[in-house]
């Protein structure tokens, strides 16, 4: 800290400014940015970065709504949460000209539904959610979501599902082939009944624990994020991540510029910094997901570049993003989830 302060002070003197280069307040997920990268940014710019952390998209939203708005410059919500925050008027906008590296955003992530043209957000990391199976326990075909929702006898009672309404209900809908945010009664009833039927085969619900239960053997199959499954494999579990034929959930975390950001200018600098391929790659090497920035490949660790979890087979069914349903429809999905966990 002292060293940083000195650096900042020296920089301030060098540029002849009357004050230090200022601050940047980041609201971020736990353990989602390598400290070395933050140090690098501080050394390059003399900006003092403070990071506050949250553990889910929803708890970030709750804390911001409960009064933390105006304290932070940037946050890192997932795709659907960007949409929600934009609809709530919680995001500020910028122009591509403000960021010299705006053009580094991978073309496929430029015109996303939650922020067309990238005026409030930049891509951070993206990945997929489906499931993994311990190949020591089950050697059969794992190309279908039936592994989770209608499991073979070997896996019954040994399945962990994510403790996350969105992911479970979307994967369930994909399995049944019904659209997201449907209001069709028959379809919703079918989803409700299918989940209740499947639940008897499940051992536990857990998101943070989804990797550990596979490594420890508490569960033989489980819904999981692709990067997490790669880590389970790296820790010695013989697990295979599936790209099911019914599809899987895609997600993308994005760094957004918050409304009433106290240090808007520094926030732009930070986002621009994260769009440099080398820096984006540092995040990817740390988190084991995939970057949304072009040109990161030369900087990636071999293991991450070539991991089967991050490289779907050519014929894999593409993933789908979670949609933000309207209030009335969401109520129905909430009821199904409560029903499942009551």
């Amino acid at each position, binding site marked *: 800290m002292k060293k940083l302060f000195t650096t900042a002070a020296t920089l301030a003197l060098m540029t002849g400014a009357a004050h230090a280069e200022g601050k940047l307040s980041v609201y971020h997920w736990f353990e989602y940015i390598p400290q070395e990268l933050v140090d690098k940014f501080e050394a390059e710019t003399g900006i003092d970065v403070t990071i506050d952390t949250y553990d*889910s998209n*929803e708890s970030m939203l*709750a804390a911001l709504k409960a009064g933390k708005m105006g304290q932070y410059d940037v946050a890192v919500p997932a795709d659907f949460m960007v949409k929600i925050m934009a609809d709530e008027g919680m995001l500020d906008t910028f122009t591509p000209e403000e960021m010299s590296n705006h053009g580094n955003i991978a073309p496929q992530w430029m015109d996303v539904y939650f922020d067309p043209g990238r005026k409030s957000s930049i891509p951070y990391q993206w990945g997929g959610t489906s499931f993994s199976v311990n190949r020591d326990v089950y050697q059969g075909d794992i190309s279908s979501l039936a592994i989770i929702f209608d499991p073979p006898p070997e896996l019954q009672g040994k399945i962990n599902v994510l403790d996350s309404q969105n992911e479970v209900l979307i994967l369930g809908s994909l399995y049944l082939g019904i659209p997201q945010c449907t209001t069709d009664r028959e379809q919703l009833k079918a989803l409700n009944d299918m989940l209740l039927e499947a639940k008897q085969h499940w051992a*536990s619900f857990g998101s943070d624990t989804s990797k550990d239960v596979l490594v420890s053997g508490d569960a033989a199959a489980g819904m999981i994020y692709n990067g997490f499954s790669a880590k389970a494999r790296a820790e010695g579990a013989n697990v295979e991540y599936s790209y099911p034929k019914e599809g899987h959930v895609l997600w993308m975390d994005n760094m957004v510029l918050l409304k009433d950001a106290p240090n808007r200018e520094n926030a732009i600098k930070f986002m621009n910094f994260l769009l440099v391929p080398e820096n984006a790659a540092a995040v990817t090497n740390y988190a084991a997901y995939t970057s949304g920035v072009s040109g990161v490949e030369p900087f990636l660790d071999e293991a991450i570049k070539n991991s089967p979890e991050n490289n779907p087979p050519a014929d894999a069914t593409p993933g789908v993003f979670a949609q933000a349903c309207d209030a009335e429809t969401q*109520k129905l999905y909430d009821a199904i989830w409560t029903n499942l*966990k009551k």
Partner: protein
Amino acid sequence: MAGAPLPPPAGGTGWKGLTIPLLIPAWAVVGIFMLLPVLLMVVYSFLTKEFRGGVVWDFTLAAYDQFFLNRGLFGDEPPVIEWTYISIFWRSIWQAALATLACLLVGFPTAWFIATRPAAQRTVWLFLITIPYWVNLLIRTVSLKFLIRENGPLNDSLMSLGLITDPLPLVNTNLAVQLGLFYSYLPFMVLPVYAAVERYNFALSEAAADLYAGRWTILREIVLPVVRPGIVAGCILVFVPSLGAFLAPDLLGGAKTYMIGSLIDEQFRGSQGNWPFGAAVSVVLMTMVLLVLLWQARAAARGARG
């Protein structure tokens, strides 16, 4: 019993005149930083839910309606009593009661044992009981899970001792949840009970023994009534936090069903984002516990006078 009937001398203990000043710090701190926020939550429970967290300042009973009445999955059937949340409450109360009982059965003998050590050793024992709690609850619970899993040390040693032939499936069972709650809150029983037992005058036991009362009769008839305040305090301190606990139940029990704590947490931090409903569930919970506490305090006061 213990010295109650002595006539109070004129001087008294001198605290009566100071009641108000002594209570001011507690009133101020809890009144401002807890009562006001809680009243705000009570108000929230009567407001309209804002989509995805927050409230709209329109008065409604919707949250309580959701708690008590079931109108079907699509909300258009004639209302019947909603058992979902009542059964979640019942399950949580049952879990917490069992955990309290387990803590009492282990905590009382432990506290008694500590209180009968020589004075210099007692503090060391108290520290021994609390040292494990310097390690974060999450870490302790994860380690406990490690110990009891199917191929974990507990099952391995039981099997090598020949006590069991197949590993006990403990993880993701109610027994594991019980163990987790017991482990989370044991000192909350031991310490208050110790504070009461330490004060116990063993001459009472000796007198009873001289009159040929058996050990266990003495314990039941003489010791327990005297140390009752400590036991009651311990039971409150274990039962109430257990009611709202969700970390141990989720990690050890598999989170397959909501407990009161996880139900409320879901409303504020989960994807449902229904603050008024979360507030309403809390109001129901707080009212229930408060009534029990006040009833118990009244009963204790009557017992002391009678």
